[in-house]
């Protein structure tokens, strides 16, 4: 709307004013025109692409979050693995050193420990293998005739 039109609107001449406003305003029926197909298609596209965008954004964020989370988990697990390996190494070497020291001490200060001698060893000859016996089928006659529980 340009300035001239605005001025004309603001100062209407009283003479030309219709006596009844309500009668002057008539609602014009809109012509029953169908929206053009392309517009409908665009509107639909707009609606669905919005939904798709929202969905994709959610997916993206969750995938991103999952990748960060799994990376963190992996890093933690890797650290734990390293720590466990280190513990294992230490356990192995300390265990071995301890064994070495103990045996050496036992030899230097036997404190009652002596070299094992055959004369002080009990040899148990292995029992010959017994022949296989097929277990006898249970005698049906020996079954208690009445329940023994009470």
């Amino acid at each position, binding site marked *: 709307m340009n300035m001239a039109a605005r001025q004309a609107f603001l100062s209407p001449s009283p003479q030309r004013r219709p006596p009844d406003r309500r009668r002057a305003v008539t609602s014009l029926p809109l012509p029953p025109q169908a929206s053009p197909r392309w517009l409908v298609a665009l509107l639909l596209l707009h609606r669905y692409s919005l939904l798709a965008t929202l969905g994709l954004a959610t997916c993206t964020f969750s995938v991103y979050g999952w990748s960060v989370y799994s990376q963190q988990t992996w*890093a933690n697990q*890797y650290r734990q693995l390293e720590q466990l390996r280190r513990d294992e*190494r230490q356990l192995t070497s300390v265990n*071995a050193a301890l064994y*070495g020291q103990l045996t050496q001490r036992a030899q230097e200060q036997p404190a009652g420990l002596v070299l*094992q*001698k*055959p004369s002080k*060893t009990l040899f148990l000859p292995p029992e010959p293998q017994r022949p296989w016996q097929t277990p006898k089928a249970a005698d049906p006659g020996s079954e208690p005739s009445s329940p023994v529980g009470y």
Partner: protein
Amino acid sequence: MPAKPAVSRVLLVWALLLVGGLGLGLRLALLQLQQGTSLREKAQQQQLVALRPFIPRRQVVDRNGTILAVDKPVYTLFAHPFLFKSGVTPEQVAAALSPILEKPAADLVQRLSQKETTIQIEYWMSEETADRINRLRIDGLETVQQQRRLYPLQDLAAEVVGYVNVDHEGQAGIEYAQQKLLERDMPPVMLARDGGGSLMAANVPPGFLDADQASVQLTLDVRLQRTARYVLRQQLQNFRAQRGAVIVMDANDGAILAMVSEPTYNPNRYYDYDVSLFRNWTVTDLYEPGSTFKPINVAIALETGAITPDSHFYDPGQISVSGWPIQNFDYNDVGAHGELTVPQILEKSSNVGMVQIMAQLQPEVYYGWLERLGLGQNTGVDLPFESPSQIKRQEQFVAYSIESATAAFGQGFSLTPLQLVQLEATLANGGRLVVPHIVRGLLNEQGELFWQPSLPPPRQVFSTNTAQTVIRMMQGVVEDGTGQAARVPGYRIAGKTGTAQKAGPNGGYLERAKITSFVGIFPAGAPRYIVLAVIDEPQGDDAFGSTVAAPIVKAVIENLITAHGISPSHPDEMPALNSEPTPGAFDTVPEPAPDSSPSPTP
């Protein structure tokens, strides 16, 4: 014109956006095209880390899984004072390090003021210590990972296992000979790090996390090795001997169960010892075996048909071969032995009898047999620096009858103690020449053997019958002959003593220097183990194979019996369990400071 201002405003905004966009695009192009390469490098420097996972040298374990050698990561701490942040003084750094390293701060300050860069502050730090230092986050301190080899059993198996030097290279023993089996290498892997410094899982090469936990298993039995070393040490002390060795081998497959040579060294502190100790003389040094070789000669004579087990020979105690006198060790005390059977010749260890037995063979045939047994070659054991045995040239051996005469009682040629064990094993296993070996194979994490070295197939040199006949004769040596000191009640042992003169460096023999030895084959009924003890230059008039070496073999066999649960072949001979056992030669703990006059054990 009312429309003009609006259009210009729109144009202005549009132009601003356009210029802004173009500017950003230009900057992007500049960053990408002009500085792209250098920026990428910079980013990679920050994000990528060359990760070298700790790949230890393989563990070495004995046949029962006892660890003999294991790798441990250690750290060296370097300081680069020129990288210290401004305001950080060496005093502050020293104060922070002092409680961790447990060193006085003043020393550290002095050390830190020496140079501007690469000052080695500490070495062989544990992983915890290195972590604590890294957590201080002081610029200019650097911890460098290295590996250190630990030998938890100290000197117990040093002659077999060997040691590694500062650069982690094997220098002796199987550490040297089995480098390929022990070493593993992995090129450093480039991995990306995230902002927090954690590793990124992407780009991790496959197999990066799988650790190769295989260990090298030896045929050695640590318990047997310990007993052997203990008794050998005591006997060396008792007889003030120069050096000694004990070898135990399984005759069936050539697996070495114990290999001890004294004196030895502690591989954890190899730098404190003399270089000559790093040589395992049971495979590097040759000696003349003396009478311990007589059973082999008897087997040769039997196999060729030159004699039968019932042959008789007259032993005058002393004979002369091509003008050279040859006499029995006891000629001055006993004189002539008279008529002797072959087993009696072995029992009495008669030199003259042996000369007469071997005289039944043509020297060419005898020489051919010695060569066939591998004399002049080495055994092919998987230990380093093995020396081939030495034997005279064939022309000389055939031309001079004294050569075959001295060879008859084990002199005039030389071999390693290990080769003698290999030859004696042919008698124990029915005539097969097996290759001695110390590496049993590779064990996986579950302790299962998944790789074994391929050994040449054993070579049949004697018939089973000959071998068994000689074993029976050797049994008499322990029951009634010179080897009675090795008797174990309830068991039968075949054996042979040896007391040989030592060859001098300039030819001929040294006057009072001798090597005493004893070889035992056990159990005589079903021979399986060969035990050899060799003592070099024992002092004293009563130093013979029977007095010095046989008690060692006895103690080792007793340990074999109890460790492997071998039940007695003659249980009726066993003393009652509740009876007080007669103390053996090594049952008392040696005094800590034995002086010049130790009481020799019989």
